[in-house]
């Protein structure tokens, strides 16, 4: 068992018993469901919209070579510097070097899961730069020195009281219960940072190949300030973010807002096409776009699971996942949690170390049903399980399935098996819950259904067979 797997089990054991956490998350996501369904009904036909979105992403991902170069060429034509990073390390080096060249002291950042993926903040801080997250949720978890809990709602696991306590401790503010006041406390701290910052770093929700633009979606206006105020803007994005045409946004922007947060359209949607041009009054003087592969091309090479690159990071699959709802975001120990994280993390960070995430699913399929770009999520979990078992089978498990197959294929042995179970069943109570109990993982919380005095097949032989 990998250490990641053990950590997952240990944390899951604690948090699944935490009824306060369970209640908090269930309540928050119930509200989300209501808002999402209301917005879904505003689409002429949500299922057709999903199909159209899936087809558009299929086109983009299956011709990534074409669309990425088109995107980069268009960007460069307007004076943007495009950097290609094969690995997270390369991307970090490119960005840290840029910051050093500008002799920057303070970096302001808007929300970017890709930067979490490559641990960019750590790298910048180690190099001696101050980094401030400007998204409210991200700012809160940064002050708490913890990773985002959810890819869209980074601080959804915290109550107002906890946030107020945090602000009192870290910012010296007065205690308050009001969300507006809490927001104002953060705003006052952050506004100073926008002015001080020499560099602004953003992510991207979409990259439009046709026009060479990135599309940024946010609710707080912080990404606009991050991009507009500092002299240098750096954007980090995964290569899968590409959309072929500008008109595709007409579908993807409302779809992302609906699936992600139950909104019609997100508060602020901005397109960036280049640094300040000669005839323009404002905007950053320099813009660097860093395109990150970081093993995405390996996923691209996997014809079976390639559609996982369709992901628009809306978080809808996390929100409906009963596993996520019970273990929460931090238990996964990954940048991308929930079903999409369980599918792609084995590809991005190694199958054997992260296969337990694909195992930790009841395969209920709620994720696949909700995914706006129709990623076949729960079937990909099955494929990860197959690939992991083929690569490194567990001798014990494999043996158990071989024995089961041998017995199940022979009616006589199957009958003997049932009779043995009946015989030993009365003894179960003597070992129940102990180390000797072969079913202890089940019996710790659940009663066992006894083998029936007469099985179906015994009944059939007696009453029906040959009659």
């Amino acid at each position, binding site marked *: 068992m990998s250490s990641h797997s053990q950590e997952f089990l240990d944390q*899951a054991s604690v948090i699944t018993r935490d009824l306060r956490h369970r209640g908090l998350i269930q309540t928050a996501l119930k509200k989300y469901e209501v808002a999402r369904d209301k917005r879904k009904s505003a689409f002429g036909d949500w299922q057709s919209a999903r199909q159209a979105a899936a087809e558009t992403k299929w086109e983009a991902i299956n011709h990534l070579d074409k669309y990425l170069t088109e995107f980069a060429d268009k960007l460069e034509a307007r004076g943007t510097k495009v950097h290609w990073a094969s690995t997270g390390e390369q991307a970090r080096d490119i960005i840290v070097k840029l910051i050093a060249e500008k002799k920057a002291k303070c970096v302001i950042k808007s929300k970017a899961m890709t930067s979490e993926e490559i641990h960019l903040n750590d790298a910048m801080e180690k190099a001696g730069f101050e980094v401030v997250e400007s998204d409210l949720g991200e700012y809160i978890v940064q002050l708490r020195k913890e990773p985002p809990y959810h890819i869209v709602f980074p601080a959804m696991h915290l109550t107002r009281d906890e946030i107020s306590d945090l602000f009192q401790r870290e910012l010296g503010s007065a205690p308050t219960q009001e969300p507006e006041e809490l927001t104002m406390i953060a705003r006052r701290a952050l506004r100073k940072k926008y002015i001080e910052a020499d560099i602004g770093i953003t992510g991207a929700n979409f990259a439009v190949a046709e026009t060479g633009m990135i599309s940024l979606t946010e609710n707080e206006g912080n990404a606009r300030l991050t991009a507009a105020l500092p002299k240098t803007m750096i954007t980090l994005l995964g290569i899968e973010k590409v959309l072929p045409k500008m008109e595709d946004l007409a579908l993807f922007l409302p779809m992302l807002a609906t699936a992600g947060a139950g909104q019609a359209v997100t508060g602020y949607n901005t397109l960036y096409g280049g640094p300040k041009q000669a005839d323009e009054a404002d905007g950053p003087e320099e813009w660097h776009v860093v395109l990150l592969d970081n093993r995405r091309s390996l996923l691209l090479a996997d014809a079976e699971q390639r559609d996982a690159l369709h992901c628009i990071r809306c978080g809808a699959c996390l929100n409906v996942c009963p596993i996520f709802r019970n273990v929460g975001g931090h238990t996964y120990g990954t940048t991308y949690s929930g079903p999409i994280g369980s599918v792609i993390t084995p590809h991005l960070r190694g199958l054997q170390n992260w296969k337990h995430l694909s195992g930790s699913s009841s395969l209920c399929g709620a994720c696949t049903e909700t995914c706006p770009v129709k990623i076949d999520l729960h079937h990909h979990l099955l494929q990860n399980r197959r690939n992991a078992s083929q690569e490194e089978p567990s001798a014990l498990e494999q043996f158990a399935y071989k024995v089961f197959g041998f*017995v199940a294929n022979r009616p006589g042995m199957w009958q003997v098996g049932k009779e043995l179970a009946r015989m030993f069943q009365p003894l179960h109570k003597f070992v129940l819950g102990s180390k000797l109990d072969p079913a202890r993982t089940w019996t710790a919380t659940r009663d066992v*259904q006894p083998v029936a005095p007469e099985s179906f097949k015994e009944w059939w032989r007696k009453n029906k067979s040959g009659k």
Partner: protein
Amino acid sequence: MTVTLFVPCFVDALFPQVGINMVRILEKLGHRVECPEEIACCGQPAFNSGYWDEARCVAEPTLKRLKNAEAVVIASGSCGAMLKVFYPQLFENKPEAAAAHELSHKVWEFSDFLVKKLGVTDLGAKFPAKVTFHDGCHGLRELGIKSSPRKLLEKVEGLELVEMQDAETCCGFGGTFSAKFPMISTAMGEVKCTSAKQTGADYIVSNDSSCLMHVQGLLSREGSPLKTIHLAEILGGNQQS
């Protein structure tokens, strides 16, 4: 018509009444029921754990023995999904691929078979109780079964159906998942039981015994008066003691 009834391994050993009621219902409707003695399992546990070779060892004889069936009715949405949806994947590029696709077209989950294939909803059953229905995930999302069991329950005399909040949320069983990740499985089951209790129902009904086994295991442990029962037991009128 001749109906080949597939009674999965755990239904055979733990819930025989489910199969017996199905035989009685199908015979009452005038069909001949056969039940091949040799078939025990669909191979889903090995398949879901990633051991596809071992799954094929069980699935291959099952596939062969069902080859000449007119219609295969299966006493579980989950095992039904295995035969209907996953056999074609399991046998992809294997000599049995064509047989797997052929079988896929004639496999039916029990409630869907009654309503969609036979066009029957009223079986003359009586069950004076308040019930809530749990949609098993495989039946719901792999096979698309939502309305059939409800149409059947509607016609049961004396039965009151109350929908629970999140009827479509997984109960947390998930086969080997329940043993490998018992803490998560249990938490999911507790959420399910809470939703069911809020309806004030006497019974949780489902068309999948595996979900019911999980939920019943939790309810029995806490000593809850809420009980579980398979749809076929209500429709056939013969309950497991």
